[in-house]
């Protein structure tokens, strides 16, 4: 079994690397196909002549297109996507600065999505009321269909403008430095409540749908009926038998969702002026900072691949029977 797991892991790592390689190749093709001189996608007058020359050499811009492609792939895998026009810094240095916020923000939102959706599904199942089930299912569908920019602006309008309960945007207030440590922590959380609701709501609705359907399936299986007839406590059945069995389909969706979140909560970060990957991507597009756009797209793709890889590992941990499935 152990050797099978190692083999599975290696296969999964290789397929992830292949996907990453395809992503890099696709990026290179997109750069070549986009309007304008391809050289302008790497160097700009803003960078100065010496730096531009260095980049041109590093990306083989004066060489045939095959050499350019090989250099691009090699540079991408070694973490060099050129120099941002606006920041005049290596692209990945800029991305890392913004990615750290996204990592924290997305992780909190992801945990909330998982927790709230499972809790909601359990609550509905425990209540055993059809109208409640229908109501929550329809409400979750409604919430899922609200675009983030509508929900974000609506929350701002209600809770910030009218009720004056939360700040409209930003990560901290202007007087942040004058606050005590505890107040500083509260201040940051206070600023992040509305963005977190905006980012989390759709995910909760989506996860709820998956987990609820999956739980319903498990609840109808014979072993659960046997457990019930043996007089096992309903809470224990739910926690020890239903949830673990119902989680599997959720993990696959969660992998994709985590990848999307880590790639940058584009709309939420722009509406609430948060310094994350999504905002960096938007800013770099609007300022036509091509190296940074390429770097952001590459990062979003790479974290998506990584999140799916992690989801597969977690699934393996939960259910060893999947080892064969992945190998096949």
């Amino acid at each position: 079994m152990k050797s099978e797991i190692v083999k599975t892991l290696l296969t999964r790592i290789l397929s992830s690397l292949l996907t990453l390689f395809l992503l890099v190749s696709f990026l290179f093709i997109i750069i070549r196909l986009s309007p304008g001189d391809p050289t302008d996608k790497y160097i700009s007058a803003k960078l100065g002549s010496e730096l531009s020359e260095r980049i041109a050499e590093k990306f083989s811009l004066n060489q045939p297109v095959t050499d350019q492609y090989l250099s691009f792939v090699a540079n991408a895998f070694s973490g060099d996507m050129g120099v941002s026009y606006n920041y005049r810094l290596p692209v990945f240095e800029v991305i890392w600065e913004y990615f750290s916020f996204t990592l924290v923000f997305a992780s909190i939102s992801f945990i909330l999505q998982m927790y709230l959706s499972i809790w909601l599904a359990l609550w509905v199942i425990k209540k055993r009321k059809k109208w409640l089930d229908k109501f929550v299912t329809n409400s979750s569908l409604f919430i899922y269909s609200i675009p983030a920019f509508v929900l974000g602006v609506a929350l701002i309008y209600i809770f910030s403008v009218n009720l004056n309960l939360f700040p409209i945007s930003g990560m901290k207030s202007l007087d942040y430095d004058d606050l005590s440590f505890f107040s500083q922590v509260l201040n940051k959380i206070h600023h992040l409540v509305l963005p977190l609701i905006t980012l989390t709501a759709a995910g909760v609705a989506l996860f709820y749908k998956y987990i609820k359907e999956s739980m319903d399936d498990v609840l109808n299986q014979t072993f659960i009926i046997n457990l019930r007839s043996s007089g096992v406590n309903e809470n224990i059945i739910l926690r020890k038998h239903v949830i673990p069995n119902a989680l599997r389909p959720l993990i696959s969706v969660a992998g994709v969702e985590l990848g999307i979140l880590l790639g940058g909560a584009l709309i939420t970060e722009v509406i609430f002026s948060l310094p994350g990957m999504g905002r960096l991507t938007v800013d770099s597009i609007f300022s036509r900072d091509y190296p940074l756009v390429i770097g952001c797209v590459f990062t979003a793709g790479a974290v998506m691949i990584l999140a799916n890889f992690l989801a597969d590992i977690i699934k393996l941990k939960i259910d060893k029977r999947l080892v064969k499935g992945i190998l096949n």
Partner: protein
Amino acid sequence: MNIKTLNLFLLSFLFLLIISCDSKKSVSENRIVIGIAADVQSFNSLFAFSYEESAIAELLYPSLLDFRWNDKKGELEPYPMIAKSWQWAEDSLSIRFLIRDDILWSDGNKLTASDVVFSYDVFSDPDVQSRLYGIFNQLFTESDGHIDIEKTFNVISPYEFEMHFPESSVPDLVKIVVPVIPEHIFKDISRDQLANHESNFNPVSSGAFKFKKWNKNQTIILEADSNSFLFTYGQTAELVFKIVPDYTSRILQLKKGDIDLLELVKVEDVEELKAEKSLTVVSSIGREYDYVGWNNVDPNEPSKPHKLFENSNVRKALSMVINRKEILEEYLSGQGDLAASPVSPIFKSAFNEKVLPYEFIPDEARKLLFREGWKDEDRNGILEKGKTEFKFTMYYPVGNPLREYASVVIKNNLKSIGIEVTTEKMELGAFINNLYERKLDSWMAGFGVVIPLDLKPYWYSDPNIGFLNFSGYINPDIDNILDKLESRISLEEKNKLIKEFQEIIHKDEPVTFLYWTPNIIVYNTRIKNLKITPHGVLVHCWEWTIN
């Protein structure tokens, strides 16, 4: 901990959070918050490429002279700043500056003539690629554009120096004055490394405000520098630039009082904002205009005239059939003015009031086109001349709703007299490339107006000089006027020539001038002493006070 307890804990925490945080306006009374859409990348005046960067850099690094807008004359006038006085030589080939001896950098060092000379050296250095690189052609320069310091400057004492000009030059103070940066900070940094140096993010300044804090992509905080020579009693204690990329969010914060001043407000929000008692709405017109470009030459063979737009009567007819007033009234709610030429009405002494925009007269346009041989002989609804049908594609860059709206109106207007237009959006980078290569038949774009007025890059026939003359317009009389404007002539003569320029341009109508678009500024009424001129909003913000 069971789920119920955890839920109870989370709810209690949220409740505590709401009641513990001060939800009232946290803006200090002596602080002005300015909303901006994008963060800066540097505080160094050398690299202040964006609007926000240059506005902040100008506050940190004052120039030798202060330029104030004279609304009556419609021109900038020099006032003392770092230089307390200046004297032109009789032959106008040199100028002697006497600078103040009481100016301190924010780190306590004194500002001297050496800083000024160093600033010119760095700004013109090709290794630095500063935002002003290439503009020093009126000074003694080397072949790469670098100022020849020895020939240009003569430092008499730490507070007095002379600036010399070549005989052929026509120096204009507005064009040759640069912000002064501290020599002691930058002198030991390799020139090609200046752009990335950490000193750009912790600037040592001499302006009325000094750098306090930068929370990347959140806020930039400047505080009043009481040691600055520009500091005045009662000056605002802090100037905060709040970065809010979302427009709706900026407007909501303006209404709530979290932002005190906002530029580039959309016309559709004006009425609602005017209704707010705490806000003042001001519209500044004359720094930007939109136009429809007609390529005067064949995009495939630039030596040949364009088969549709070579004739000035045809271009005039096109202008007569575009209902610009409708666009102004419908989309811009009457904010903005019709344009007749590229000379803005803000330049009151040079503006020719006799040159009026072409009226919307489709019948007259039809007659003009008929006279030029454009008729619908085959009755298919499209005009033709010989075998050439009057149809073309008009391009415009994506992301401008006004131009999108205008393109529909223009298309319908032209269709009504038998001209078929296909409108097409283009990515901005590709659009600009095409304009520089003169590949487009027709396009809709806009131009910003520089102060002082500079027409040569836009209308000179030689593409190396008139590099922004995208329509390939050629008129020797215009070239002659533009050359004369660069010679040593009096201001009256200059204004006379500019008026003549407008008449010729109006007669030739190389492009259809649409309208002067407004910059709508909204600010909180608690800000006093704020003067909005075409020169800018923030230029003298240290004179603002809080009510």
